[in-house]
């Protein structure tokens, strides 16, 4: 019985939050990976693109809430999300047209593009803060829980409860759908294959008559879709805060690199590796161990490897270690 309690405890405080967070990171890392493999630079503005999509979604959510439009038990955010996606796509295409295209025509190196993306990051960050302000906003409404900890306890008779938030189910569900759709697109459609071809061998893609400008535009559009969905899901699960996305950029980069840069599968894997490491390393195991060992062995301290203050640091410790011992990432990525 105690083993069961321990498992439920672990599930409630480690597996469920880490899976949700991993799905959010994976969506972000996929966007970084797409830009990296087609445009070949580290996009520092990606966090702000996520923020931008989430902000637009939030605006429309407020409008719907005021107008009394609801999605029943589902959060209103889901109704507003398409607009956020469209807005993010527009934003990405505008930056491509006004900023990045020039540097591609100059065949600028990846560092120049990365610095330029810092400029884009500044502009987007300013725009977002100008439009919504620097404050925190709650995005979720509708039914908060799929089932609550108390309901779980009543149903099972266990001492530990297991709660699943609606936002968590939606996050994981939507992320799975997005990833499936992305892989279908990349492997089954003509444009998707052309994207892979351009990423694989740009010169030969050109010889084959693939128009890079079109593929790049598609890439930005896909990146924006992933960013807006990822940003909105993150905001839905936690809250929307403009400055959080700058911090989120770090674990997202880490996920993309740890998994193997330029490899979509790697980005997903990396997202979960980072998320699970963060949660596992900062979880206090006192209660968990108390269930498993005889009473006299019960630990006194929190049995926590790292204080939760260092949550964001974990992703970078992993990143640095991976860069040092296996710079290509878990799935051998392209090091261009």
């Amino acid at each position, binding site marked *: 019985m105690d083993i069961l309690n321990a498992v439920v405890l672990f599930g409630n405080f480690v597996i469920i939050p880490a899976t949700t967070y991993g799905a959010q990171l994976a969506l972000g890392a996929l966007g970084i990976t797409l830009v990296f493999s087609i445009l070949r630079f580290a996009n520092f503005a990606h966090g702000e693109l996520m923020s931008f999509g989430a902000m637009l979604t939030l605006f429309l959510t407020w409008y719907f809430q005021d107008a009394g439009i609801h999605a029943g038990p589902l959060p209103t955010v889901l109704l507003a999300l398409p607009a956020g996606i469209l807005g993010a796509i527009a934003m990405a295409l505008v930056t491509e047209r006004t900023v990045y295209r020039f540097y591609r025509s100059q065949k600028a190196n990846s560092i120049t593009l990365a610095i330029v993306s810092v400029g884009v990051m*500044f502009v987007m*960050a300013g*725009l977002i*803060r100008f439009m919504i302000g620097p404050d925190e906003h709650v995005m979720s409404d509708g039914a908060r829980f799929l089932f609550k900890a108390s309901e779980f306890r009543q149903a099972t008779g266990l001492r530990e409860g297991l709660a699943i938030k609606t936002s968590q189910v939606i996050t994981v569900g939507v992320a799975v759908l997005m990833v499936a759709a992305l892989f279908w697109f990349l492997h089954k459609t003509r444009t998707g294959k052309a994207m892979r071809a351009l990423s694989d061998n740009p010169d030969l893609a050109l010889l084959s008559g693939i128009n890079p400008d079109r593929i790049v535009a598609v890439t930005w559009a896909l990146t924006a879709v992933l960013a807006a969905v990822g940003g909105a899901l993150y905001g839905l699960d936690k809250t929307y805060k403009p*400055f959080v996305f700058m911090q989120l950029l770090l674990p997202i980069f880490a996920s993309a690199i740890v998994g193997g840069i330029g490899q979509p599968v790697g980005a997903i894997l990396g997202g979960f590796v980072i998320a699970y490491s963060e949660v596992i390393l900062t979880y206090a195991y006192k209660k968990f161990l108390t269930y498993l060992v005889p009473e006299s062995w019960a630990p006194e301290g929190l049995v926590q490897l790292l204080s939760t203050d260092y949550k964001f640091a974990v992703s*970078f410790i992993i990143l640095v270690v991976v*860069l040092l011992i296996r710079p290509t990432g878990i799935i051998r990525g392209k090091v261009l």
Partner: protein
Amino acid sequence: MKRRGILYFAGVLLLLTGVGWMQSWNVAFGILNMCLISAIMALGVNIQWGYAGLFNAGIMGFVALGGLSAVLVSVMPVREAWAIGGGGMAASLLVLAVTVGAIFFIRKRLSSPFRFWAVVLVSLAGFLVMRSLYLPAAELIESINPAQTGFLGGFGLPIIFSWMIGGAVAAGAAWLIGKLSLGLRADYLAIATLGISEIIIAIIKYEEWLTRGVKNVTGLPRPVPYEVDLVEAGWLLDLSQYLGTGLTETASLLVKICYFLLFLGVLAIIMTLSERALKSPWGRMMRAIRDNRDAASAMGKDVTSRHLQAFVLGCAVCGIAGAMLVTLDGQLVPASYFPLRYTFLIWVMVILGGSGNNWGAVLGGCIIWFLWIEAEPLGYWLVHAITFPLEDGYWLKQHLVDNAAQTRLILMGAILLIVMRFAPKGLIPER
């Protein structure tokens, strides 16, 4: 080219004089002092990016280490805290040192299949032992008079020493970080340094026994006189009457001028050294490596160790600037360190001024800091002008006015993008 540079600097001075006339001389010197600190940071980044082509996105971390040094040098030691927790801290440091030593030993001596697991095992064991010593010690230290101290304190030395020590601490950290990450390709280096700087900030923010963390350390001693002392001096009264300004205003202006002279001195020294380094064979080789890394390494130049030198020197300069910044503020506020402000803004300075040109870096530092400060009133003015037709109190107008300050981020981004596009060599190009 030289004339153009002088014109730019004259323009900045003119702007500051304008602020002096229109707003107040106190504000003008306040901005000017921060311009000088920004210029020093920009010089540090210029050594890395301009000389060597290294994309360091972790400037914030080194600036913060300099700031930490200012605290550790100048604050009086908390004897009780040392007595109660000093031993535990020292022991955990010793364990850390032994663990690191053991890892190096294993990496040197053991062969491949066992090595990895031995390293994992030793580091885990070392970590756990260290933690068991460190946690109680930290708790004890933090329990001593938490409202006022709750940390080990510093060495109680004059704060001006911290400028050198801040540089040295940043250099030491840079050496370690550079050793680990300089082999990486350029954009990975940027991401890795960005992450490391976040880790440094996290440590400063959360290791309360060392830094008081988010409780901040305030009231740091000054290298210059205090206003209250100046006000009591008789000659100040005469001076303020002569100038026709208020007594406290004159005092605070005098303090700012003292800082200005100190900062100008430091800038002059660093500038001279940087210019010498740039023109020396070392600087020429650095630029040769930057422009054609492969050719340089084919000619037998040790690229990685040259890069390490530039990285360490640049970070040391940033550390000095960080210590100066905390000295000027008189406090360390760990939660105020954001990459946008302390890393990427410095980048905008260097790129606007002219990568590879020290005068350009100084100019960029001054211009960008001026704009960063003055964009705020400008933003308000602009928003008020645009929303003029709307009546006061209308929600949209209120909202836009509330967030007008954020326009400066847009301005900085626009400057970076425009310079990169239309004048990638910056205002004062590299010769």
